């Protein structure tokens, strides 16, 4: 959740992974061995624990003051001692991120459907969508603050904006990813555009949509936090600013971890949903 990760927005145009067949089989074969299965999560857990221990050692060994770099133990203590402050500021961010996620993705999906059925609309509005995407979110935030005030609205819109573009691009590609033969088949049957959309295009776009939703699930949290930076006295973003100015480094770190946890929770939820819905996709790698 740093400023550096804001720059990653433009690169967020992932595509559906369809080359996963061979990898899926290899993975399955390895997963069959019970020993491998039991200790599957061991390497990342050991690595993370090792790095935390090293961090603790360096901070206490060299006597680094807590306001410059707190130790893991100090950060952990914040969750117990100042848990209430963290929770009070957690809920607004959660709400803004979720509302922004829903808004941005819905608009993107509806627009994509329109673009696929209307060549002229696509040619007219696609460049505008690209242009809006090129404006740094941090520059749009103050503008929205002026327009929408100081409440939830501008934060939701910022979170929506950050979700919007990857979903639009992927959804347009997904809706068009229907084989020419399938379209010929539908034409032979005199199927209408509406029937083709509901029976074929929407389902075949789902792998592409979920690829975009996974990106959006983490960027919507970034959007909400950036919105709170610019002007707010609640939320994780505002808590980050406040903790920084007051040199409350342990609180700052705890807030960042909570924000990251929120994004991870969104990501995992989206992935689980994808796994449930895309059961038909052979060799899908999640």
């Amino acid at each position: 959740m740093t400023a550096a990760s804001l720059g990653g927005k433009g690169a967020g145009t992932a595509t559906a992974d369809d080359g996963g067949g061979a990898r899926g089989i290899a993975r399955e074969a390895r997963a069959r061995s019970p020993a491998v299965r039991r200790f599957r999560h061991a390497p990342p857990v050991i690595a993370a624990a090792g790095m935390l221990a090293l961090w603790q050692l360096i901070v206490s060994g060299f006597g680094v003051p807590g306001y410059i770099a707190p130790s893991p133990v100090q950060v952990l203590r914040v969750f117990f001692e100042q848990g209430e402050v963290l929770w009070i500021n957690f809920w607004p961010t959660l709400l803004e991120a979720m509302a922004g996620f829903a808004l941005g993705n819905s608009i993107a999906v509806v627009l994509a459907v329109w673009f696929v059925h209307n060549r002229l609309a696509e040619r007219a509005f696609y460049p505008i969508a690209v242009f809006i995407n090129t404006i740094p979110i941090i520059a749009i935030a103050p503008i929205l603050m002026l327009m929408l005030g100081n409440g939830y609205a501008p934060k939701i819109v910022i979170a929506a904006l950050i979700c919007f573009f990857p979903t639009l691009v992927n959804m347009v590609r997904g809706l068009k990813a229907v084989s020419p033969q399938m379209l010929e088949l539908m034409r032979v049957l005199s199927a209408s555009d509406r029937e083709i959309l509901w029976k074929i295009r929407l389902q075949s776009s789902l792998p592409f949509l979920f690829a975009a939703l996974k990106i959006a699930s983490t960027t919507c949290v970034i959007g909400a936090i950036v919105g709170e930076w610019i002007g707010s006295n609640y939320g994780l973003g505002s808590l980050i600013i406040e903790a920084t100015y007051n040199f409350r480094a342990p609180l700052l770190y705890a807030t960042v971890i909570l924000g990251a946890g929120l994004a991870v929770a969104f990501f995992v939820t989206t992935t689980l949903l994808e796994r449930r819905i895309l059961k038909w996709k052979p060799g899908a790698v999640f």
Partner: protein
Amino acid sequence: MTAAAAAAAEAEASVAAAISVRELSVRFDGDAGSITALDRVGFEVPEGGFVTMLGPSGCGKSTLLRAIADLVPVGGGAISVFGRTPEQARRARDFAFVFQDATLLPWRSAIDNVRLPLEVGRKSGVVEQHAEPEALLALVGLDGRENALPHELSGGMRQRVSIARALVHRPRVLLMDEPFGALDEITRDKLNEELLRIWRETGTTIMFVTHSVPEAAFLGQKCLVLSAQPGRVREYVSIGFAEPRALAMRDTLEFVQVTAHLRSLLEEAR
């Protein structure tokens, strides 16, 4: 022409033509100017007939099939399907198409894929008889696999599903574009035999594009041999084997004579 072929031609004259193609030309406008895919092609398919189409790559076999099904605009000449234009026939849902690729919807089970034609394109108010999807899957030998998803089926099984789907709205004309081209020979032989059985049981008029000479001879009552660039009719060969045909027939002298003739036509057509 042999005596048997002449007798067959005589017998056909009494049967009404299902498809009649006259002076058909199809051109494509590309970057390098206009390409003539089909040039003054003419032939007739009798109702309930089985016609195979053979020709070198790029001779416009698929284009011809698509022109009949109103998927490609006609440049010149006329196509008549049961006395109607291709568009009228398409709107009346006279056609079904089977491709080399089974083109099943991967999220639908076999039975639901077969049902697809019954769920779309009915706003035109055409009241149509339809076959039971379950019975059709049994007809193509897939009873018991109704709920399997396409990726759980073999290539041959997928193609069987796609044939069952093509038959579900009881089309009068079945257009097949190299349907068994991607299958191994054993599966292909088996499906050839089953297709003949299905044809006899349903009485559907079939047009079948293939690259395989034995397949063209084994399946077709007639075989339309096309030459390439531009696509023209090389010869419309009548194949008068005794019905019902069996795979063992392919080792007879009579069969080899027919395939030899078709091969020589293909050689010249190149």
